[in-house]
């Protein structure tokens, strides 16, 4: 389903400052299609900032991010088409229903069937007409992941995706991640728990 060239994501000498404090310096890594990068480290070392600077929300003090051999800032709109980011703030509108929240982000040419398919995959299809402010934290997390799935982008940047998700949800999420990576996607995620994705090459990066 996801179809793109090789090379994947590569990061060169990434340095990040936050409020005049050095978070990390000179981070280099490459994540080829079909690979998972697990970023771990203590609270406050800059895992979230790393993900935010990968997708361009945070301008790194130094260093470059390359996606498929091209500088990510060279054509931001095209880069944003292939990146899906999930942060601590999920970005779901309380006053819109679950389905509307996802339909809002569908690209031209993607039909609402895709939304239903993604919700079904995450096991939250029955909630599709509920307003988002009636959902629990775990349900919201699943909806946000369904939105990511519906967007159909090869590069996933997930900040603590397992937060608030129940045991069944973790299994679903692991299955979805495995499928995405097997189709040639790239996943960079932060998590405090060790992750177990069978039959996948997982790199780890400690900050």
């Amino acid at each position, binding site marked *: 389903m996801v179809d793109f060239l090789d090379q994947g994501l590569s990061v060169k000498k990434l340095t990040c400052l936050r409020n005049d404090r050095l978070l990390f310096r000179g981070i280099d890594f490459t994540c080829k299609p079909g690979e998972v990068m697990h970023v771990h480290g203590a609270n406050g070392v800059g895992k979230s900032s790393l993900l*935010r600077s990968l*997708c*361009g*929300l*945070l*301008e790194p003090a130094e260093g470059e991010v390359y996606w498929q051999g091209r500088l990510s800032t060279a054509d931001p*709109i*095209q880069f*944003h*088409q292939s*990146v*899906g*980011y999930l*942060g*601590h*703030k*999920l*970005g*779901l*509108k*309380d*006053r*819109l229903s679950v389905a*509307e929240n996802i*339909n*809002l*982000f*569908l*690209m*031209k040419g993607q039909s609402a069937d895709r939304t239903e398919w993604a919700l079904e995959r995450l096991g939250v299809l029955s909630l599709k007409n509920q*307003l988002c402010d009636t959902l629990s934290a775990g349900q919201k997390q699943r909806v946000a992941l369904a939105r990511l799935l519906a967007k159909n982008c090869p590069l996933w940047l997930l900040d603590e995706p397992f937060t608030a998700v129940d045991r069944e949800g973790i299994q679903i999420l692991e299955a979805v991640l495995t499928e995405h990576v097997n189709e040639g996607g790239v996943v960079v995620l932060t998590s405090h728990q060790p992750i177990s994705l069978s039959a996948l090459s997982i790199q780890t990066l400690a900050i």
Partner: protein
Amino acid sequence: MLRQFWHYDLVACFRSRAELLLPVIFFIMVVALFPMALSVDPALLQAMAPAILWVAALLSALMALNGLLRQDHADGFLEQSLLCPVSLPGLIFAKVWAHWLVTGLPLTLLAPILGKMLYLSWQGIGALVLSLLLGTPILSFIGAAGVGLTLGLRNAGLLLTLLVLPLYVPVLIFGTSSVMTATLGFPVIAPFFFLAAMLVLAVTFVPWATAAAVRIGLS
């Protein structure tokens, strides 16, 4: 995609009707309080009507700014929009437009009734509606820039007011002067041209300025 954003923005606004009605009710109440406090002398009310109506509309627009962008920033929606393949200035334009439709337009439509309540002549009411139609979108756009600049701050309310009010003054001056000249029976084309020019300026520049401010606020 911008159309989708605009559409769902309006849907979300209409679902939170209570917040939507607050600036409108504020507008009506402020205008209604003046005859009670001042006097019921028609000549006096008529003379003061342009100022009362415009000041009330301006304060009500200022109040309505709370619903613009700030919630989107708090719940992470702006971040997600930023990572969409749409241009940020376009997105902000769509948002401000939707915001004006649910805040500025109701004020404009209510103004004739309140104008009549203050003994405003028909020419005055015509000028009032047209000046509000041109002026309230300017207030929304300038307000958006102010909100964009104060996004990351905790208690942004006071700072936003201080930032935005001086920029609202020209709109207020030309708005009230158009209504006053109309009630006196003089030609009113000049203030309308000024308002229209300010609107064009706001529509063309503010989305870009706000986009830059939002980018800084998010990083």
